[in-house]
């Protein structure tokens, strides 16, 4: 997920060797995986660095809206679950950064791109989590959308990314289920708690649909990514899969989805849905969403506040090494 592919297009000016290019594409067409030491076109490498690092940044920034509720979780059980879930997201970021590093970029460079605002992360994490039900709605809808996106990425042509995605997908089921379970519990509660669930879903439904990226007619990266088998489905196809899977779950939960155009097409079996507000989407991507500034401020602060820890650890390691070589 979180691969809305929103930076500038990765059109490479350099000229690639035609024969190498053809051999590379033939490997992809045979469903062979590409590994870090294999020859690859510069544009393939660049696209992957951008996509994998955006994905990693999203996992890391994604800890913030949920972290907002750790100290206010309504029970020890929910608090432990939420902490475990957030810890997983941090882990996902690390799996992905390490996959990106196999392409020859350093961790420091990638972190710097995030903190300087050069790199993007998913628009969804620029929305606030206003009530406790948001924690459940994030698990159900945001992780649910992530799963839709990430399952086909397990078959991505680049080996390290595909292996990271397999690891991540194994952990996502817990994320979605704990969210849904939390909402089920609230729906069994008071009228006020039920309203909180509806309120959370009303606010997060459209941003969740935007997670799949712009509509196919406006998506600038899809063609290359599909040809290289980094992507297997278009943004709109994945969005449709998500809507089809989620509408029945909303019904079981007993809430409505905030889309008056939502209706089942009996012939296709698909749920037709309205258009997300793309102006809001692009505005959020540009940095003007509700929480963009807060998120960046928090990430920068976390990084700067951690500087002394990194320094102390290095100083300790250097001291130990000096001791050892003196002995």
């Amino acid at each position, binding site marked *: 997920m979180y691969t809305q592919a929103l930076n500038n297009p990765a059109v490479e000016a350099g000229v690639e060797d035609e024969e190498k290019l053809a051999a590379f594409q033939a490997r992809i067409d045979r469903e062979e995986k590409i590994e870090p030491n294999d020859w690859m076109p510069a544009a393939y490498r660049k696209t992957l660095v951008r996509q994998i690092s955006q994905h990693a940044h999203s996992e890391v920034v994604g800890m913030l809206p949920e972290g907002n509720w750790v100290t206010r979780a309504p029970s020890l059980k929910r608090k*432990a679950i939420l902490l*475990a879930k957030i810890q*997983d997201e941090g882990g996902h970021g690390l799996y992905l950064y390490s996959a990106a590093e196999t392409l020859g970029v350093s961790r420091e460079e990638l972190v710097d791109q995030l903190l300087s605002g050069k790199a993007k992360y998913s628009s969804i994490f620029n929305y606030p989590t206003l009530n406790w039900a948001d924690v459940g709605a994030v698990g159900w809808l945001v992780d649910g959308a992530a799963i839709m996106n990430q399952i086909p990425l397990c078959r991505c042509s680049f080996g390290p990314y595909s292996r990271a995605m397999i690891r991540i997908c194994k952990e996502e089921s*817990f994320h*979605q289920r704990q969210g*849904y379970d939390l909402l089920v519990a609230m729906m069994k509660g008071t009228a006020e708690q039920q309203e909180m669930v509806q309120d959370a879903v009303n606010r997060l439904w459209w941003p969740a649909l935007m997670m799949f990226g712009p509509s196919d007619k406006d998506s600038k990266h899809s063609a290359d990514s599909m040809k290289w088998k980094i992507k297997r489905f278009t943004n709109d196809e994945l969005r449709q899969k998500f809507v089809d899977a989620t509408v*029945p*779950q909303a019904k079981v939960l007993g809430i409505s989805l905030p889309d008056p155009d939502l209706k089942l097409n009996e012939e296709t079996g698909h749920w037709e849905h309205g258009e997300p507000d793309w102006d809001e989407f692009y505005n959020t991507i540009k940095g003007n969403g509700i929480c963009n500034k807060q998120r960046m401020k928090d990430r920068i602060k976390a990084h700067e506040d951690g500087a002394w820890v990194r320094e102390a650890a290095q100083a300790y390691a250097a001291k130990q090494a000096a001791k050892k070589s003196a002995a």
Partner: protein
Amino acid sequence: MSEQATPLWEVFIRARNGMSHRHAGSVHAADAEMALQAARDVYTRRGEGLSIWVVPSAAIIANDPDEKGEMFEPTASKIYRHPTFYELPDEVANM
């Protein structure tokens, strides 16, 4: 006569693209290049691999097996990390 011991290397092999390298065993060799060639001869005589990593055995840091209790205990008590911890309504049970 005291002969210098030949360094030990751990060998990791990728069976085919798409898989991660897996530990296969070890070889003795005087340098990295000879270690790679020895690993090829010892572990991939029948096309077992497409890629080999050799790592000086001394560079591998392992946890102390006597302390594996403390090392891994925290994970055992966190049953809520597993999807099966959550009982969902039947209609959505395959989520």
